[in-house]
């Protein structure tokens, strides 16, 4: 399956860090319409930092980020969201003290006239209707629309976080470890939903710990190791998971490994 020519979202030559801690060095990541890119790597490799840089929560110290053909490197996160970038953060950063319904309405904040205006009743009604479609897709949310987000179970919160992001009808969706802390059976459900997202032309960037499951649903695989990109190719070109082993377990070494016994 050949890739569409132009990526929806592209980070090129990106270096990024926190204060003077350099986490990413010269990173390239691409997301295509209707395709799922899996971003993998061991802890501390920089996966979350990459997503934060793409979304604008972290400033890049070098390189550029292009969204839908536009250079958004200096744009704040709220503007990128308005352009069609969705981001479901690790740990399901919902508004725990707001209800399910309110979380969904907030998810659709960018919709409607100008996105940041005072919004009339019409906008609220339109958002309510859109929330109804989310309830159809994620039935468990429909049953608990008046509950506070903080009272939901882990799996329900993950569904809500996804639905919240989808309310804005994003063109690109960043997902950070949606399976985090969930029981295996829920993980399977979540990943199934994720795999279907690309059907409508949505580009998805999935960060996951569970590498094998991620590769199974991915079209493209990018692997980070200590802030560098070490593998960047179509999923079909990955022979098997052991190819990743070196990236995960190698680390940076100055001395040759002890002879294997």
């Amino acid at each position: 399956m050949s890739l569409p020519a132009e990526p929806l979202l592209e980070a090129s030559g990106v270096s990024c860090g926190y204060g003077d801690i350099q986490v990413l060095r010269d990173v390239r990541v691409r997301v295509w319409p209707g395709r799922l890119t899996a971003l993998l790597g061991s802890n501390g490799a920089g996966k979350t930092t990459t997503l934060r840089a793409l979304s604008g929560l972290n400033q890049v110290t070098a390189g550029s980020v292009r969204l839908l053909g536009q250079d958004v490197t200096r744009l704040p996160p709220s503007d990128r969201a308005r352009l069609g970038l969705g981001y479901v953060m690790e740990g399901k950063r919902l508004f725990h003290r707001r209800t399910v319904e309110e979380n969904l309405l907030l998810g659709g904040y960018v919709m409607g006239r100008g996105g940041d205006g005072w919004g009339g009743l019409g906008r609220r009604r339109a958002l309510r209707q859109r929330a109804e479609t989310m309830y159809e897709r994620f039935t468990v949310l429909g049953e608990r629309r008046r509950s506070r987000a903080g009272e939901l179970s882990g799996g329900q919160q993950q569904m809500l976080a996804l639905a919240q992001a989808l309310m804005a009808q994003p063109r690109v969706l960043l997902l950070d470890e949606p399976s985090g802390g969930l029981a295996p059976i829920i993980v399977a459900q979540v990943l199934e939903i994720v795999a279907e997202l690309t059907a409508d032309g949505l580009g998805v960037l999935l960060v996951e710990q569970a590498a094998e499951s991620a590769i199974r649903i991915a079209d493209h695989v990018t692997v980070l190791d200590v802030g560098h990109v070490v593998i960047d190719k179509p999923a079909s070109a990955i022979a098997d998971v052991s190819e990743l082993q070196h990236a995960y377990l190698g680390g940076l070494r100055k001395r040759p490994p002890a002879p294997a016994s």
Partner: protein
Amino acid sequence: MTTVLAGLSVGAVYALVTLGYNIVYIGSGALNFAHSNLMTLGIFLAYWGLVQLGWPIAAVIVIAALVVALAAVAQERIAIRPLRHIQGQLVTMVGTATLITGIIEIIWGQQALTVPSFFDDAPAHLLGGAVLPDDLVIIGLAVALTAVLALASRFSLTGLAALAVSEDREAAQLRGINVRRVQFGVFALAGAIAGVLGPFLGPLTFASYTLPAALALIGFVALAIGGYGSFVASAAAAFAIGLVQTYTSRYLGANYQNLVIFAILIVVLLALPNGLAGARRERVV
């Protein structure tokens, strides 16, 4: 009953202070204890407009709202910018509050000034108690504003967005909410409200440069009881404090008013660190 009404009137003033605190807290996560200075500025502007210039009330309200909103926004720019350590934030916050008071002193001097009321001095009689019409107006305003703000924050998208900002700034940004603009907006709103209240507060409190400190501190007690970010709980606590203060003054003497409030403050802070209904996090101005 007279005592009750007097207590409610005092409490209403404190409630208005907590409204100012909460508006800013909800949209920015910051606690602006200089709000009482803004309210005092509003009172002096009312004096200036009504007494010194003799303008009609409508014009005075508009001018006061604009000027105080401007002061509030300027304060946001100065006191919010580079601040990382709480020790530094304390300094700039006290600085802006003091500067506003200082400007008031320079322009209007240090004598307490009388702001005229719309009503004559005849007390009204309500439910068996005597009360000045000004007191009723302020009680009404406090209740009405609390209700409007509580409803708006829950039921309007903008209000919801502000609540979101105070709960999780980053998540709010990702949902497309321009947090900078929200922050600016809530400061401007709090300032405008403080300005509008000037002509109504003035007759009750007199225009005095010593007003801010007491209002700020006792308003904080109400906020500590009700919880940061909760309009209704903090306002209710404020009314309760007004009643406590008035009754204490009546039965124990005026010297004990603040002591009792202080004791309540200590108990509340040690026993209920998040207040009755409040949020967990506090950032700063």
